[in-house]
């Protein structure tokens, strides 16, 4: 594997996670529990789609075969996506969404903080820019975790269940393979174990404040680095890709 090939894969991991989470969040459009939250969630969706665009465009430039951001988003199959397993989890109820977003945003926050000093100029610029946006996402979801966790018995039970059920998808965030090994050596990527310790701290701080219990690490789901996903990704992609697949090169 060349550095370029590794970098393309690295961009797709970040870009796909943003894209899939953005698509998930867009499903909340007009379904939010209150108007302010509907607007907040669609705003967050927009930020993620924007972040995905930068990374997918860059992957296309690096590849040099003329593939655009749209080609990457709309013309790849499930097994060619490298998004985190967490990002494709269904929205469920509002608490499920808040928990998923919190765990993913805390990851992005620490990832982008670290990548702001990547030796790859575009990755560094993208990280510095996106960090400003995910800071708001992290704060938004963390505040909701506290409100729900330290709320009524019902909200507490529900959000604790959300955390317990999604926990097995968090280990995947920190997995590494030879792509990481190569890019860490080049000063482009960051060692995921560094992110993990910072992520742990943020998660612990918020859960403690929310009076929620952090599940113990047990079996962790795996696969996204090889393009292996849960059954949910295929359905999400089917909806996301329907129009460009049915009407290739449609314009409006």
């Amino acid at each position, binding site marked *: 594997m060349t550095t370029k090939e590794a970098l393309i894969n690295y961009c797709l991991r970040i870009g796909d996670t943003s894209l899939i989470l*953005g698509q998930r969040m867009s499903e909340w459009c007009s379904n939010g529990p209150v108007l*302010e*939250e509907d*607007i*907040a969630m669609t*705003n*967050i969706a*927009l*930020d*993620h*789609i*924007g*972040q995905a*665009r*930068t990374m997918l465009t860059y992957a296309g430039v690096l590849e040099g075969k003329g593939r655009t951001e749209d080609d990457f988003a709309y013309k790849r199959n499930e097994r060619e996506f490298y998004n985190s397993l967490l990002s494709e989890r269904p929205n469920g109820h509002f608490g499920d969404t808040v928990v998923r977003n919190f765990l993913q945003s805390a990851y992005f*926050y620490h990832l982008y903080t670290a990548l702001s000093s990547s030796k790859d*100029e*575009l990755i*560094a*610029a*993208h990280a*510095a*820019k*996106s960090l*400003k*946006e995910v*800071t*708001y996402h*992290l*704060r*938004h979801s*963390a*505040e909701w975790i*506290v409100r729900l966790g330290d709320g009524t018995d019902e909200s507490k039970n529900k959000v604790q269940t959300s955390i317990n059920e999604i926990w097995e998808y968090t280990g995947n965030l920190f997995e590494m393979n030879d792509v990481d090994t190569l890019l860490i050596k080049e000063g482009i990527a960051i060692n995921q174990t560094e992110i993990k310790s910072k992520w742990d701290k*943020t998660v612990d*701080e*918020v859960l403690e*404040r929310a009076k929620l219990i952090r599940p113990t690490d047990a079996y962790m789901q795996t696969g996204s680095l090889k393009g292996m996903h849960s059954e949910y990704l295929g359905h999400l992609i089917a909806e996301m890709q329907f129009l460009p697949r049915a009407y290739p090169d449609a314009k409006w």
Partner: protein
Amino acid sequence: MNYTKEQIWKFLAEIPDPEIPVITIEELGVLRDVEIQPEKVIVTITPTYTGCPAMKLFEDEIILALKNKGIENVELKMVYSPAWTTDWMTEKAREKLTQYGIAPPVKGTQDKGVLFSSGSKVVKCPRCNSENTTLKSQFGSTACKALYRCNDCLEPFDYFKCI
């Protein structure tokens, strides 16, 4: 090329923000550079937010503005570094925002505390100038705004949030 860089900058500087037409792309800090080459003009811009839908409109407006001056060959260059910040917004733009009914960003870039901000920042109501206001949501009508309410005149208002 019949125009100087300064002239072209001036044409572009007048383009209004499609969402908030009282401020221009120059005042906003989106317009970063103009470069004249023998064959074309390169205009460098930077996005406010990565997903800002207004960026496409900015691009169309820039191309149209130059076309109206007879400049056909325009290349748009998007840069991400240095990342756009509300600190670039001029005093004049801040005043215009207030008059338009949007509270301008309180200086000092992003709120420092990532989690559980103390909320000590004072955002003045653009209508009655009261400092007695409450944050309702960090996310408002567009990506760049938060939603506040004035506790004195009771009106809701947009706040151009700091990034």
